[in-house]
C-alpha cells in the first residue's frame, strides 16, 4: 500500500480506491443535511392522585388547626351574663332565693345602723355596747365573714351559687328517689 495516496491522494492505489468506492455510499452528504429536530421538553405533569393527596392534606391541616383554635377559644371565652327571663307572672323563687346571698357578702346590718335623733343614736350605741357579742354572733351565723368584695365578685359568686343550687336540687331528686323518700 502506498502511503502517498492515503496521505494526499497522489499516485494511485487500486486497493484503496476499490475500498473508497465501496464505502462511498456511507459518506456524509452536506447538501442533504437536515436541521436536527427541535428538542422536546418533557414536562412531567403531576399525577391526579398526587395533587389530590396534597390538597387533601392541606385541607385536613387547616381543619385541624381551626378546630384546635376554636376549642381553645371556647375554653377561655368570656362569660355570658346569667339572665332570668320572666314571662308574664314572674314568681320564680330562684330570684328570690338568690337575693339573700347578696346581703351575706356585705357588712352586717348592726354595723350600719343609722339613727336620726341623738336619743335614738345613744340608745342604738348602748345596744351595740351591751350586746355586741350576740349581734356579732348572729351576724356571723347569717353572713359569712369575707373580705371586701367587688361588685363583680359578688355577682360571680351569686351566679355560681344559683347554678350550684339548681344543680344540687336536681341531683337531690335522684338521691331522694334512691333513698325511697
Amino acid at each position: 500500500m502506498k502511503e502517498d495516496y492515503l496521505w494526499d491522494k497522489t499516485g494511485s492505489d487500486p486497493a484503496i480506491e476499490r475500498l473508497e468506492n465501496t464505502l462511498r455510499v456511507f459518506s456524509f452528504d452536506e447538501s442533504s443535511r437536515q436541521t436536527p429536530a427541535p428538542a422536546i421538553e418533557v414536562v412531567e405533569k403531576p399525577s391526579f392522585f398526587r395533587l389530590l393527596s396534597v390538597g387533601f392534606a392541606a385541607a385536613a391541616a387547616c381543619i385541624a388547626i381551626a378546630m384546635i383554635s376554636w376549642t381553645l377559644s371556647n375554653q377561655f371565652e368570656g362569660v355570658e351574663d346569667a339572665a332570668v327571663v320572666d314571662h308574664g307572672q314572674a314568681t320564680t323563687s330562684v330570684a328570690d332565693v338568690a337575693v339573700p346571698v347578696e346581703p351575706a357578702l356585705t357588712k352586717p346590718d348592726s354595723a350600719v345602723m343609722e339613727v336620726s335623733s341623738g336619743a335614738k343614736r345613744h340608745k342604738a350605741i348602748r345596744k351595740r355596747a351591751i350586746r355586741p357579742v350576740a349581734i356579732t354572733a348572729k351576724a356571723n351565723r347569717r353572713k359569712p365573714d369575707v373580705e371586701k368584695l367587688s361588685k363583680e365578685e359578688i355577682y360571680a359568686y351569686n351566679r355560681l351559687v344559683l347554678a350550684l343550687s339548681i344543680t344540687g336540687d336536681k341531683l337531690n331528686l335522684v338521691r331522694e328517689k334512691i333513698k325511697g323518700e
Partner: protein
Amino acid sequence: MRLPIKYLLLVTMLLLAAIPTLAQDAHIRFDRLDQLETKARDVVEVNIDGKLLDLAKRVTAKVNNPDSKKVALAISGLKGIYVRVYNFQNESEYDMADIDDIRNQLQAPGWERIANVRSKRNNQKVDVFTMFTGDMMSGVAVVVSEAKSVAFVNVIGPIDIDLLAELSGKMNIPRLEIEKDPSTTSKPKDEKE
C-alpha cells in the same frame, strides 16, 4: 417522589382521626331550645365559665365557712356550668321532641347514663349522665322533665356530685323548690335572711 405522598396520606389520615377527638367535649348545646323558651312561663338561664367562674371560685374560697370550703373544694376543677330551667303554666305544654335534641347529644359516644329515675307523680323523669376522659370525670349532665317544668344542667369538669347534693339546702346554697305540687310542698329549711 412516591415516598412523600405516602407520608402525606398518613399525616392526613392521622389529622382526620384527631378531629373527632378534639370535637368531643362535655359541653351540651342548648341552642335549639327556642321552642321551649317561647312556650315557657318563666325561664332560668345561667352560664358560668371562663373568667367569671374563676372569679366565683376565688370568692368561694375566701368565704370563711366550712360548707363553703367544701364547695370550693368540690368545684376546684370545674370549667363551666350551664343551667336551663323552663317552667310552664299548664301540664304537658311542651313537646318531648323539644327535649330530644338534648337527649340525642347525650347519646353521643362518651356519655354514660348513671341514673335513671321515673316517677308517675308529676310525670317526672330524671336522667343523670357523666362523661369520663380516662379516669377523670370531664362532664355531668342532668335532664329533668316533669309535667310543668323541664330542667337541664351541664357541668364541665370534675365535680363531686354527692357533695353537691348534700350541700344543697345548707350554707347559702338554699334548697330550691321551683315547681312542686302544692299538696306535697313542705316548707323549705333554707336560711333566709
